């Protein structure tokens, strides 16, 4: 019986468009964005979010241009961050401007505390004890992060609170229609924890594959969360551009330079927005040289 049901093809299909994924978000939500700095950011989903009417968002990210663009577009009420950087351009210009204008609230924490906050949410516990943050102004500027006594020793411990997410946006190399997602680059960063910390997880992918693709254990080994964590799969080739998606493509240094330079011009963001966001994703790919050119971008050397 089971076998015949499977053959009848009664399998779920989580494929959707970027617009359908972003339609799953609401004003005021806390949204996690995967990747790290200029690496494997779900930028096509971020561009779709930029085209929406969403506002008052709390963004939780190891930040790069995703955070900068959302700040520039006025979508952000608060950023939870340890850094916002494009690596080779150390200071993200639009995030910097938002901070220096006092335009956003922040929760500035250590990179590892950030991991623990996602882990706590993923474990459905309210906090994880750590020594990280002791003696620093992270505690001064985040009075919501409490220092507690231990039942087991006489030391002070930081109770890093869970960072539960209403939604997470991620980009991966490959996914199937049921939400099995594969990351082939050398580092999956904390994407697995974002997927587990969030109520809804929307994943863009460079390639859609049949489930059969994962029958090879070497391929299945690069799957870092179970498909039950995945809400929606959006097929967006080149969807991490201008960030990298190693080994498929490196980050687009020329594009990032143009983006960073725009922040120095009056009206620079609206010009960038008109040229690269308002036009829609298909035209975006044309304007940055096409998918074939993206796939030729050299992998960065650190």
């Amino acid at each position: 019986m089971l076998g015949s049901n499977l053959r009848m093809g009664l399998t779920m299909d989580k494929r959707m468009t970027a617009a359908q994924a972003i339609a799953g978000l609401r004003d005021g939500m806390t949204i996690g964005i995967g990747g790290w700095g200029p690496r494997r950011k779900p930028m096509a989903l971020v561009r779709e979010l930029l085209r929406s009417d969403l506002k008052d968002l709390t963004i939780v990210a190891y930040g790069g241009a995703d955070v900068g663009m959302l700040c520039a577009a006025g979508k952000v009420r608060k950023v939870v961050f340890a850094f916002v950087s494009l690596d080779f351009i150390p200071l993200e210009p639009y995030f910097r401007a938002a901070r220096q204008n006092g335009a956003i609230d922040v929760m500035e924490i250590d990179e590892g505390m950030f991991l623990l906050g996602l882990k706590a949410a993923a474990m459905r516990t309210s906090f994880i004890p750590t020594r990280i943050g002791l003696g620093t102004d992270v505690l001064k500027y985040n009075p919501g992060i409490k220092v507690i006594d231990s039942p087991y020793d006489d030391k002070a411990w930081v109770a890093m609170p869970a960072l539960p997410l209403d939604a997470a946006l991620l980009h991966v190399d490959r996914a199937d229609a049921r939400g099995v997602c594969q990351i082939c680059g050398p580092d999956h960063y904390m994407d697995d924890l974002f997927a587990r910390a969030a109520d809804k997880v929307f994943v863009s992918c460079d390639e859609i594959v049949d489930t059969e693709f994962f029958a090879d254990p070497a391929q299945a080994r690069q799957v870092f969360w179970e498909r039950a964590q995945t809400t929606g799969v959006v097929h967006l080739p080149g969807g991490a551009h201008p960030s990298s998606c190693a080994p498929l493509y490196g980050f687009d240094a020329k594009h990032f330079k143009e983006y960073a330079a725009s922040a120095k011009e009056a009206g620079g963001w609206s010009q960038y927005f008109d040229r690269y966001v308002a036009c829609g994703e298909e035209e975006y790919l044309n304007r940055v040289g096409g998918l074939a050119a993206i796939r030729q971008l050299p992998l960065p050397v650190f």
Partner: protein
Amino acid sequence: MSDYRLVDLVICAAAQAWRDDGEVLATGIGVVPRLAASLCMKAINTDLMMTDSEAWLVSEPVPVGPRGGYQPRVETWMGFSRIFDNVWGGRRHAMVGPTQIDRFGQANISCIGSDYRRPKAQMLGVRGFPGNSINHANSFFVPNHNSKVFVAGEVDMVASIGYNPARLPKGYTFADVDIRWIITNLCVLDFEGPDRQIRIRSLHPGVSVDDVVSNTGFPLCVPENIPVTPEPSKAQLDLLALLDPRDLRATAMGA
């Protein structure tokens, strides 16, 4: 004596920071600290571990800059989540470049200005400084030694814990904090003065005590006899040429 530049002297002095660390992860952020760690792993403490600055531990330091045909000799996966596993276990000594350092060794890379809600200059954010400073050994590199870096009061945003009695958490002593050296364009400093006061450990050739003191925003421990920072050897300079074949270090002191 061989021909060398200030940056070569600074790298060779900084390389000594990991000399007695045994088998720990040596992380150098930026060209000078990374070359210092590389030189140390290659010639001084060969038990050190280093990464390719991306996702792998390597069995020999990866030269800085474009790789040409060079393939990193990976030995262990070391993605960022695993870096934190290592950090929290304490087997690491990082050398980083803060924007500000105060008399307690508290450091800042987050933001500059007195109004945290609206900083005068947003920098990187605290990154891993809070976790690094409470978990493992740290040293600092300062390419331009002046009183804007070595500030008179506390740093604007205390991103890493130092030897500040007023901020010591319950159950902790100074022995739980491990700040080693500060290598600058003028000198090497350590924390071996009375009550962990910052002390001049060595002066680079041609630099006077007054050069250092007048460019530091707080009082330093000045020993009666201060050694001169050793000049690089020919062997060290030859190794540096291999580790930095394109001479990226030429501009690494900020020129």
